[in-house]
């Protein structure tokens, strides 16, 4: 065991810190979930890309730095410590990209990744449908073969697509063999959201921002080049990367360490009684636990191991931690907790209430915590399925 950083890692951390100190906007950008804020975040993503901070762990050819997982963790810590903007590119760079690296063709990677890194194309994920939430295999959107044009025609409805109303592309699963078992006969498609036949409708989220979208597809043509990982192989392709996403890339410890540090500051600014102080301490310890747990995971991955069902432990832990931290912050704020946005007496522009609302989504998205606990019980502990 060696928890120290090499001089090269220290230097990497310092370089990231310096750049962020000089470049993070001093007044926070408006929410990236609304159209106007999204445009500003796109500019920020481009700035990250130009300085090669957008996708540090990717190969240099695609705009990365070929950084190790340890360096990626350090970058993330610095990023959130600096209070840098939310990553609107997240679903592309953290969720689609690992799938492309594993299952994509060289041509797909070359075509898609550089534009994704530069936020020229921002990606939405299209899994959920009105009839398919936790039970994703119940999805009914379909694709029919179009041999004449060499591709597929997609129809159906995707829902709850994060920032879908502002994105350029969407990745998702569509049924290509309606006769197959429910977990088979699906194909992973890359869909241009500006293509003829696509209608996108913004849907407000809990905080009122247009952060959700319904995506309606009516006979949308998608060429064979935009099939990822083989026809009818969609379920396997989608599942192969979800556990590494849940287990590592989706929510790095930096985010929660930063929240815990801000919570301690908040406690000092506004004062805390013994019980609230204990809650703040718990948050601090939990964030630290999450950081160390991730270091264990990273070590295992660097040794050639994989992240399996135990990624569900991870997802339950960070999502519940995030909710607890924000609930504690709101208690510390007392009656000021309800103030939002431009209310003159709002603390930190109402960031804690905004964060609280987002934190409450954590136990729902990326597979609800109830589903994750089923997975933990069945696949980690080996309890019988029902």
């Amino acid at each position, binding site marked *: 065991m060696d928890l120290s950083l090499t001089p090269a890692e220290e230097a990497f951390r310092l370089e990231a810190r310096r750049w962020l100190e000089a470049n993070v906007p001093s007044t926070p950008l408006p929410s990236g979930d609304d159209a106007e804020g999204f445009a500003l975040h796109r500019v920020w993503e481009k700035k990250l890309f130009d300085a090669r901070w957008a996708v540090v762990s990717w190969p240099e050819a695609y705009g990365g730095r070929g950084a190790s997982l340890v360096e990626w963790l350090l970058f993330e810590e610095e990023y959130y410590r600096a209070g840098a903007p939310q990553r609107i590119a997240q679903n592309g760079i953290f969720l689609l990209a690992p799938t492309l690296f594993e299952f994509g063709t060289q041509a797909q990677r070359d075509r898609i990744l550089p534009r994704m890194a530069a936020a020229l194309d921002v990606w939405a994920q299209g899994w959920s449908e009105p009839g398919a939430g936790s039970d994703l295999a119940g999805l009914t959107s379909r694709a029919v073969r179009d041999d004449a044009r060499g591709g597929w025609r997609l129809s159906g409805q995707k829902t709850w697509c994060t920032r879908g109303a502002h994105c350029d592309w969407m990745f998702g699963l569509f049924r290509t063999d309606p006769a197959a078992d429910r977990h088979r006969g699906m194909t992973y498609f890359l869909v241009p959201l500006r293509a003829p036949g696509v209608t996108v409708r913004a849907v407000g989220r809990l905080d009122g921002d247009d952060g959700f979208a319904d995506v309606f597809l009516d006979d949308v043509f998608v060429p064979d080049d935009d099939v990822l990982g083989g026809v009818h192989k969609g379920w396997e392709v989608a599942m192969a990367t979800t556990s590494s996403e849940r287990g590592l890339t989706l929510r790095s410890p930096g985010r929660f360490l930063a929240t815990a540090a801000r919570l301690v500051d908040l406690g000092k600014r506004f004062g805390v009684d013994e019980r609230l102080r204990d809650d703040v301490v718990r948050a601090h310890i939990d964030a630290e636990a999450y950081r160390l747990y991730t270091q*264990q995971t990273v070590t295992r991955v660097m040794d050639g191991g994989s992240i399996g069902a135990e990624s569900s*432990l991870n997802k339950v832990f960070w999502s519940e931690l995030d909710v607890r931290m924000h609930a504690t912050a709101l208690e510390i704020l007392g009656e000021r907790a309800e103030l939002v946005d431009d209310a003159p007496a709002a603390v930190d522009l109402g960031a804690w209430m905004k964060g609280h609302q987002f934190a409450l989504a954590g136990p729902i998205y990326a597979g609800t915590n109830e589903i994750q606990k*089923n997975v933990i019980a069945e696949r980690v502990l080996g*309890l019988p399925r029902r």
Partner: protein
Amino acid sequence: MRFAFSPDQLAMQTALRALLEKECPAPVVRAAWTSDTGHSPALWRSLTDFGLVGLTADAAHGGVGLDELDLVLLLEECGRAAVPAPVLEATAVAAPLLRDAANDALNARWQPALASGEAVVTVGLAGSDFVVAANVADLVLLERSGELHAVPAGALTRTAQRSVDGSRRLFTVQWEPSAETLVADGEVASRAIAAARDRGALAAAAQLLGLARQMIAMTVGHVTVRKQFGAAIGSFQAVKHHLANALVKVEFARPLVYRAAYSMARGDADRSLHVSMAKAQASDAAEVAARAALQCHGAIGYSYEHDLHLWMKRAWALGAAWGSAAQHRARVGEALFGG
């Protein structure tokens, strides 16, 4: 950065687990509850021969001379098997405390005896009124007014204090400090005692991890076999979620415990803080695991004949010993907020 144990450390853990499966199955734990001393000389001999008892004793004096990081997985195994023996007191705390605080003569006298299993050494530090295993100890290291004393067991007046865990024999002790018993005072004593207290809390945390994981394993075994409504009760979601919640608690306490061991071994400036985080989290995790285990067992887990209570009561005891979760969080709070 590498957060993993060495092949040697893992091999020792595997070997100890195998030994304990053989030498310390549940009937041995149960027997310690009703035996006169709570101590099994045969088990102590096995643990000594394995090298566990003398693991931290000074290499210059017949010990193995290893550190907290080498010991932590082995303590976890002791927790997993609910070992009824003062490994925490003798190996995790007393041997390094003697090394840090005592002069050569005293070390030469006691370290080899401790390492060879000839003598049992236990401790009674300020902050706790109780000495574990004082009935079978040959020497007790005791703190009074910032001084560290080494008192032969014969010079103590002991009063037994019955623990909920029948294998933990606790005593309050009366004794007279003297020039002969004095080991160290001043700066040397206070530094050595502070480290000893951290080692005790770390060792308790490591055992709690093992206890908690074993309570979950026992419960998985039970709910897989027990049937109600025509199905294994482990197929019911409420049961699954109890166990999943417990597992999340335990698995997120684990890296804090390992990091604390690393920091202790390295003499990291924040080691005490790291120990407190570990003990707080491990105590809570074991508590949650015990609750889940009992609930998922139903009445059989509530019965004295079933083994679960042996583990559960150890978890209760160690959860409170060497500083409760709340006390350790308070220590973290002082570091974060000041005073």
